């Protein structure tokens, strides 16, 4: 017979166990909202809904960073670009490749499960810029990711078994130029997913799926249909193949209930086939996650000749702007201007060059439009020009970080220009390649030994506090910590810690391949760890012909570092 005291104890144990089980298996909307405050886990792409990639952890600092050592390494069993964002929950790391999702013990590096994803080989015909996947979302015990062949799949976080799978509805297909490479974002219970494929004559969109069931809830075409507002910015039926994809994950402001996402370049690349501003390509859009309703949009590069894909993640921050602290979104745009917009309504607060730009003299603060130079006008007229930046941009998709402590952005930039010429444009059909073959270009360099910089940039002025040069541009994202350390990786495989105040490289470790991944930091049992994927790939590695990369072996692996503790 159980005593009252024993009964109370048992009830307490059951309650505790239930609570633990819930916390171990559930990632509620509240957990996701507080991700940036809980450094024991990494739940949201960008290390929190704001996408700041900032950590309050300070165990690893400037004085001891030189003592960083690898704790373990894990083979992804793949030779393609390792661009994935690692999600970490309860001592388990979830990571992705284009053809697999993996759960790994965060302390030992041993595999817990691996789910392989098959896709028809034809899928790869419309993957323009590296056969990659950039990561998964976690929600209520499910790992949710996109597959290359346009499906969203949810896996049980404990077992890797499939919970639901939904195919993106028509006209989404490989034949029509669509592929999915980006990481979904779960906002207000809705899985938000974008598409790649503006190089294959599609019409880009964002979609919402129910995170519990996978039910398709809505689609927001980034390009308006005929008759809708903005359709007058497209000539004829060019909107049907107009591009405007959404392949880089956005951010979410739970208080305003707005998701911010960057949209991609118009198609074809050759602008002479699509007269007009081409709304809402190359734009930052704010949408309601429950419905897909667009609340505001800001176009960075109207009538874009240069493929200045505006997909870079809009980072949310509260910074001094126009005399007061303001909630803003910041985008390091591929065209070379750093935009600061009011998060509430998209009002332009600042736009300054943060690299070498010659196609525009600046941004008109009243209209938000670029002040075009003759280079731009000549390009649009079909003349051969030398333009800075190149198609790759002043930055590309690699994510910047923002430190609320320093007030600075840490951006991996490119320093590469191009010659450019747009001949008579071809006629397009959906699914037909519409990028490279429609223009002519060559690489232009100021200095073959400096093709990129890691810069610490003031968001309101675009000016750098410091610039650390690199022989090849870094396509790794950056991570910044409260101890003023910046972590990033190089194309030749060095994983590095830099002083956020000076740009000095404090520590460097050679991983087996080039790094195009996304570093994250986390803690467990009182020890701080840093995790990143190594594995060269992606658009620059494949297409640039950069001679510095010829001896970089392929091969994806996941690495975790900590301070040497003996």
């Amino acid at each position, binding site marked *: 017979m159980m005593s009252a005291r024993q009964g109370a104890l048992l009830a307490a144990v059951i309650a505790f166990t239930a609570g633990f089980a819930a916390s171990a298996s559930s990632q509620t909307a509240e957990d996701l909202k507080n991700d940036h405050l809980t450094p024991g886990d990494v739940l949201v792409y960008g290390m929190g809904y704001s996408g700041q990639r900032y950590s309050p952890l300070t165990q690893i600092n400037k004085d001891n960073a030189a003592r960083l050592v690898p704790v373990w390494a894990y083979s992804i069993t793949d030779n393609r670009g390792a661009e994935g964002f690692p999600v970490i929950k309860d001592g388990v790391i979830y990571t992705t490749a284009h053809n697999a999702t993996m759960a790994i013990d965060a302390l030992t590096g041993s595999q817990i499960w691996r789910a392989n994803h098959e896709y028809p080989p034809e899928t790869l015909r419309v993957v323009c810029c590296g056969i990659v996947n950039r990561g998964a979302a976690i929600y209520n015990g499910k790992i949710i990711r996109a597959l290359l062949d346009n499906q969203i799949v949810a896996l049980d976080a404990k077992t890797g078994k499939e919970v639901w799978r939904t195919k993106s509805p028509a006209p989404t297909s490989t034949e029509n130029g669509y592929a999915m490479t980006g990481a979904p974002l779960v906002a207000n219970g809705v899985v938000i997913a974008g598409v790649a494929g503006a190089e294959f004559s599609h019409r880009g969109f964002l979609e919402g799926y129910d995170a519990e069931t996978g039910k398709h809830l809505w689609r927001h075409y980034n390009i308006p249909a005929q008759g809708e507002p903005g359709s007058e910015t497209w000539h004829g039926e060019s909107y049907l193949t107009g591009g405007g994809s959404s392949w880089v994950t956005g951010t979410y402001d739970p208080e305003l209930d707005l998701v911010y996402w960057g949209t991609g370049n118009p198609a074809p690349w050759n602008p002479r086939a699509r007269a007009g501003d081409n709304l809402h390509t190359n734009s930052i859009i704010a949408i309601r996650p429950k419905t897909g309703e667009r609340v505001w949009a800001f176009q960075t590069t109207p009538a874009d000749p240069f493929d200045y894909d505006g997909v870079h993640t809009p980072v949310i921050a509260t910074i001094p702007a126009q005399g007061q602290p303001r909630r803003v979104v910041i985008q390091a745009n591929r065209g070379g201007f750093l935009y600061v917009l009011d998060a509430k309504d998209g009002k332009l607060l600042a736009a300054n060059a943060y690299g070498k730009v010659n196609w525009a003299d600046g941004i008109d603060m009243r209209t938000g439009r670029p002040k075009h130079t003759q280079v731009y006008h000549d390009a649009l007229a079909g003349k051969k020009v030398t333009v800075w930046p190149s198609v790759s941009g002043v930055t590309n998709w690699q994510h910047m970080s923002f430190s609320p402590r320093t007030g600075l952005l840490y951006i991996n930039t490119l320093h590469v220009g191009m010659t450019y010429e747009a001949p008579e444009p071809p006629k397009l059909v959906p699914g037909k390649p519409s990028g490279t073959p429609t223009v002519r270009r060559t690489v232009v360099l100021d200095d073959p030994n400096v093709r990129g910089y890691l810069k610490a940039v003031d968001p309101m002025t675009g000016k750098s506090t410091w610039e650390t040069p690199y022989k090849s541009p870094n396509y790794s994202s950056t991570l910044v910590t409260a101890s003023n350390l910046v972590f990033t990786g190089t194309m030749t495989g060095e994983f590095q810690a830099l002083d956020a105040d000076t740009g000095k490289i404090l520590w460097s470790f050679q991983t087996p391949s080039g790094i195009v991944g996304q570093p994250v930091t986390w803690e467990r049992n009182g020890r701080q760890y840093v995790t990143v994927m190594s594995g060269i790939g992606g658009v620059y590695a*494949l297409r640039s012909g950069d001679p510095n990369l010829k001896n970089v072996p392929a091969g994806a692996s996941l690495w975790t570092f900590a301070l040497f503790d003996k």
Partner: protein
Amino acid sequence: MMLDRVLRIVAAALIVGGTLTAHKSSAQDGAKIAAGEVVYNTYCATCHGDGLVSSGQTFDLRRLEAGARSRFENSVLGGKGQMPPWKGVLTSEEIDQLWHYIRDNAYQK
């Protein structure tokens, strides 16, 4: 004397004719190479690099030698490793053009 003159005329005609044939063949190859470059930029450059210059992570097509044509066609049509199959997308004429473009830029002519 007359015969000698006739022979000279015939020889000259043969030389001119031969040169013209050679020019015609060269012009055809040039057109194929140019068309092959367009095919390459449309379907292949995304993985094999701008202007056939690979950074080292994918096969350097400039290594293909003259005797590798059937191997090349099999790989293009059926796919190889993570290269998708192009059967049903690329015509035999386009594959021929592509081959001429690659061979024109090959390390070993």
